[in-house]
């Protein structure tokens, strides 16, 4: 801002500039500069770069995962104990673990939102078939990665989930048993070790290879939104810390023996994570397990995978593609219904377990068909109304009024200073909470700090002259 730069400052700037240019030029020989990062100067909607936010979650998971790996033991009788140690003994272990768990949920959710944004906006049509197909595969693999992740904790839910996952693969016709024997081994000690190998290496490597086939070369690096995502993960982790559960094996190991006094306890009900509850609802209809657990979800995924080859119209906007927009809305509706239904277990004591768990297939599939039909009717009706109202679209509406910068720079500085002060206060609080042993409060405070930084950066960017 000052126009009186001295020659010294100019020289410094020149040196930095020179170094930067040299660096970029030498890096140009490597693959690093295949990607071009654009940093928006104004606020832009995060919807177009939800994919990059998913990648940010992947980075968070990688870092926290590496830290967890230092203390986790993948043995059948030591896994839960190691997770308990991480949670209760290792300093900041609970924080790292909660960040890892919440980031995994955030990653699955952001991946789903990212897919739907590209679906409704029609961006998959711009010669993006490979990117779309690898994206669907990426999404499936992300869910599998998250699944193997919460399976290696080996609390009651995890052990049962391992059983179900392996036996579903086993039920595949013809190749099932051999597939399980080859990929997962035989016996639970094998399963756990291989789930661990899958989770920390094999699937991440596949994801990285897929990323090279899926990331477009221009990536939007929007600092406030990235910070907001990280802040949200921390906030949620602080408000809802994940419980350890009870071990399914060995409450303790004495002289090499599993002390089974309190183990193998009867568990009333066990639920998977939200992204698999719909599968759980299918299984609860008591349909044949391969069809319910593998075939139907695979068909659902395949339906998405072939979309760019089926939707060949030249129209991009969701308003101009009523059929496929309705299909998308129907799929969202079905996901919501089946996910909710999977969570819903009537726990009134008069019902037996079987009665409580049973979902009438006629009811659930009827509901899904009804949702599809309603989506179609509703979407067509709404689009017709839209077309009737605003013929001409954007041109008829006129240009959006330019955003007016109503905050003077004095106000901006004042707000930034207040936020900074609040951040310092929160940091202090977090440190105190850490000393006093309230890890969820630490996380909440840190989450607020990061969120404040996001808001501050956004405000700063908003106030800059264009």
């Amino acid at each position, binding site marked *: 801002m000052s126009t009186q730069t001295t020659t010294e400052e100019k020289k410094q700037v020149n040196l930095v500039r020179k170094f930067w240019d040299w660096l970029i030029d030498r890096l140009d020989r490597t693959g690093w500069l295949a990607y071009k990062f654009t940093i928006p100067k104004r606020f832009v909607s995060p919807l177009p770069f939800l994919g990059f936010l998913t990648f940010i979650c992947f980075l968070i998971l990688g870092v926290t995962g590496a830290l967890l790996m230092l203390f986790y033991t993948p043995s059948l009788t030591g896994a839960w104990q190691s997770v308990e140690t991480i949670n209760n003994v290792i300093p900041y272990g609970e924080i790292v673990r909660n960040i890892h768990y919440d980031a995994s949920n955030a990653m699955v959710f952001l991946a789903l939102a990212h897919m739907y944004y590209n679906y409704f906006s029609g961006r998959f049509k711009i010669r993006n078939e490979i990117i779309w197909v690898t994206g669907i595969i990426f999404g499936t693999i992300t869910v599998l990665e998250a699944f193997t992740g919460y399976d290696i904790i080996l609390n009651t839910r995890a052990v049962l989930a391992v059983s179900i996952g392996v036996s579903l693969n086993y039920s595949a016709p013809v190749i099932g048993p051999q597939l399980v024997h080859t990929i997962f081994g035989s016996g639970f000690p094998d399963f756990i070790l291989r789930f661990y190998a899958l989770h920390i290496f094999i699937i991440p490597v596949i994801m990285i290879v897929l990323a090279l086939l899926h990331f477009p070369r221009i990536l939007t690096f929007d600092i406030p939104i990235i910070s907001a995502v990280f802040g949200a993960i921390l906030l949620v982790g602080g408000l809802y810390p994940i419980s350890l559960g009870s071990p399914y094996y060995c409450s303790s190991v004495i002289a090499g023996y599993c002390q089974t*006094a309190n183990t*193998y306890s009867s568990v009333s009900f066990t639920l998977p994570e939200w992204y698999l509850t719909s599968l759980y609802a299918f299984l609860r209809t008591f*349909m044949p397990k391969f069809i319910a657990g593998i075939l139907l979800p695979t068909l659902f995924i395949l339906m998405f995978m072939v979309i760019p080859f089926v939707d060949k119209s030249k129209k991009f906007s969701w308003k101009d593609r009523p059929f496929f927009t309705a299909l998308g809305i129907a799929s969202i509706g079905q996901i919501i219904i089946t996910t909710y239904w999977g969570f819903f277990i009537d726990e009134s004591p008069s019902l037996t377990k079987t009665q409580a768990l049973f979902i009438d297939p006629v009811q659930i599939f009827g509901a899904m068909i009804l949702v599809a039909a309603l989506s179609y009717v509703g979407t067509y009706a709404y689009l017709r109304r839209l077309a009737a109202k605003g013929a001409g679209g954007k041109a008829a509406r006129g240009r959006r009024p330019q955003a007016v910068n109503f905050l003077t720079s004095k106000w901006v500085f004042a707000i930034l200073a207040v936020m900074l002060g609040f951040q310092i206060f929160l940091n202090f609080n977090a440190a105190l909470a850490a000393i006093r042993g309230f890890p969820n409060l630490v996380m909440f405070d840190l989450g607020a700090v990061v969120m404040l930084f996001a808001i501050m950066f956004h405000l700063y960017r908003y106030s800059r002259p264009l």
Partner: protein
Amino acid sequence: MSEDSENEEKKAQASSEAESQAQTSNEEKSSTETISISPSAPQPQKPKTTPMIGKPIGTPVTPRPTSTPIVKPAAQTQTPVVGGPASTPVASRPVGTPVVGTPRPSVGTPVGTMGPIVGTVTPRPGIASLAGVSAPGGAPKLPPSKPPESKVEVSRRNFIKGLAIVGGLVAVGSFVPLFPYLEASVGVGTATPDLPVVVNPNVAQNQLVPLKPADVGSLNSIDPNSSYFQYPYIVGNTNANADSFVQCVLIRMPAGFNGEGYSVTDTSTGDQYIAFSRVCVHLWCLWSYNTNDPRGPVGACPCHGSTYVPGSGTYPKTPSFSNQAPGTAVAGPASLQTPPNNMLPIIQLTIVDGSFHATGRVGVVGCGQKC
């Protein structure tokens, strides 16, 4: 006439040689792409090197005998050789090249329709062995005709490609025997029971206290009539004993229930005991026994609600559960699976010196009693 014929001969030979050259040059061109000779460009006159057949011009070529038909290869560029019978011998052209010329009968016409010229043909010895031309009447006797060798022409390039592919397949295939690496088990494998005694789960495991009938369902168990144990039990190997597939349930059967030969009786109290694998045959969760289930004493799985009966008995509240064989799934998804996947494997028990011994298993864990 002879001059003309000679000129025609020369022309014919030149053009025929041009054709053959064109063919080879075609191949060369496709492999090296440096030769710019086009097939239609006139070739320079080459000195005659190949012997002529010796037939006078105009002589219709005797057709090949029908017994030795010319084998035409499938996709060959048939460049018809223009020229009379006084052209280069057939050996220099691929088999099947139609030899077109001045009026000649097509292949296959019976020999008898030939004109009188036939008699004047004096085939050269070199040609006769290949072509099998028979000259009835007057011609010297020929050695028995050999059928023309049917060659499938493979270019050198394709041959090398084929070698490379086969080599690649062999290279990849030589790693297939290493496949069992993936299947080697780290965990339990086929464990042999070290300990026939059913270890009391309520006491510290390192003491290996045997389970007595009176201890079944004691204080630490949630249900008063069942205990959980491992079969086969591997002494000292915590990992192996924590495997789901060795978890079993020992049940004190309700009064009036029939174990159908799989149960043992405690002579002092008259109670019957039976044991099953704890792995549900639906999706391999571990079920638990509940004497006080609303439907009666059954085992129920927490994952999807599969329900198993410990023996055949009467269930007043749910008559469909009555009189089913021990370990049958009577409700839930396991009951909807086709036999043999709807019955639990049974652990065979005996009572020795007042404590339980597990001696064997009927069925395959996770599959069913009759698998």
